[in-house]
């Protein structure tokens, strides 16, 4: 009789993959969203419209659907050019990066609008070029204003990594499924997975609280 506890180390190893996928997608998304938010407010009508369309499309598409489309779409592309298939982790990273990027872009756009205009005008007044205004004034203030929303976004992203299990990324939830195949005890396996997610979320919450109190000092 196999028990789930024998497979605990195997389950816990899934944390690395969940956190790696979540962290990497979050990083890609944040950078992507920040760059797009900066472009959005200082560019032509056409590019502004493109970015708005990007945000509204990914507001409507379920993350599961994006991941499936990216994975099967990438297979079609790689087969037609004769390359080897993209591995599921990379496909999930691309899909989540692009999708979460649209959420991050919205967060940064809101933050940009909340930056006091006077500070940016002051930058212009002392003759700073606009990239310098962005780097020294706008972006640091945006990051500070966006910090709480970004924190909860990171929490959301870690949870979304569970969806990557459907294309075979062996993260926590997928591993729990595999353990069920061996032990026939879904209650214990998914229960353990849920507890591990709770632990990850608890660590993130503590980290986030500390960051927010540090900011106030």
């Amino acid at each position, binding site marked *: 009789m196999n028990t789930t506890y024998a497979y605990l180390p195997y389950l816990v190893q899934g944390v690395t993959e969940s956190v790696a996928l979540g962290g990497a997608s979050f990083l890609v998304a944040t950078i992507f969203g920040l760059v797009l938010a900066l472009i959005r407010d200082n560019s032509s009508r056409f590019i502004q419209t493109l970015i708005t369309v990007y945000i*509204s*499309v990914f*507001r*409507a*598409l*379920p*993350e*599961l*659907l994006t991941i*499936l*489309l990216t994975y*099967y*779409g990438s*297979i*079609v592309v790689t087969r037609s050019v004769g390359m080897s298939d993209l591995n599921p982790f990379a496909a999930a990273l691309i899909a989540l990066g692009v999708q979460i990027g649209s959420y991050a872009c919205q967060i940064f756009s809101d933050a940009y609008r909340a930056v006091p205009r006077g500070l940016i005008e002051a930058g212009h007044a002392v003759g700073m070029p606009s990239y310098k205004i962005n780097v020294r004034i706008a972006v640091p203030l945006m990051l500070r204003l966006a910090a709480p929303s970004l924190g909860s976004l990171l*929490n959301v992203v870690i*949870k*979304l*990594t*569970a*969806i990557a*299990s*459907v294309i075979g990324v062996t993260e*926590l*939830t997928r591993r*729990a*499924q595999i353990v*069920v195949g061996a032990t026939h*005890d*879904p*209650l*214990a*396996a*998914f*229960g353990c*997975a*849920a507890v591990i*997610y*709770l632990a*990850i*979320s*608890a660590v993130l*919450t503590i980290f986030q609280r500390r960051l927010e109190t540090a900011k106030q000092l």
Partner: protein
Amino acid sequence: MFDLLSHPDLWLAIARGIPVTLALTALAMIFGLAVGTVVAVMVDSDDLVLKWSGEAFTFVFRAVPLLTLLYFLYYGLPNLSFVRHGPLWEVFFRYSFAIAVLGFSLNNAAYLAEVVRGGIKSVTRGQVEACKAIGMSEGMAIRRVVLPIAFRNSVMTIGNELVFTLKATSIASAIAVSDVLSNARAYGKIFSDNLSPYIAAAVFYLLIVGLIDVALSFIRRRSQM
């Protein structure tokens, strides 16, 4: 390669999932709001036991991914004999749709509790004191004044949550609920085309969310008048 997209049958098959997706979304929003409101009031109460159980509820259901929660409820719970042989098995726990409603409602309640709490905080002290001044009990003040104002102030946030719930319902396809996404997947399996059905499903999601957004902007314009 995309010739499947020109088959009307594909679109019809996927469209048959729309009522399921909408029903899941609506039920999850209704139960989520009801439970979420109770939890929000619990978290804000002075009784420590109520406060802590409310916070534990939001923490747990915000931390566990929906997919894991659905697997746990759908595959895990029948292992408990009082669920498997209890009176609710035949009427509730057997059905993947019922399990999906349960899972989404719990998850939604945790998120909506935060939204409603934000709304409650937006009610000014003066309004609460006015209730006390004319002799309302605390429960009456919450029911008649605090909650209605809180809901009105958080209409847009609840609307956003509605869109997120609609998207999340696609996860129910993992436990054999035949919603838009799982109909697409089933159709793709028959014709061994894994891409076109998903593109068609994407079109439907874009349409539904587009309609919701139009309705939301209408509500916002009316509430500003």
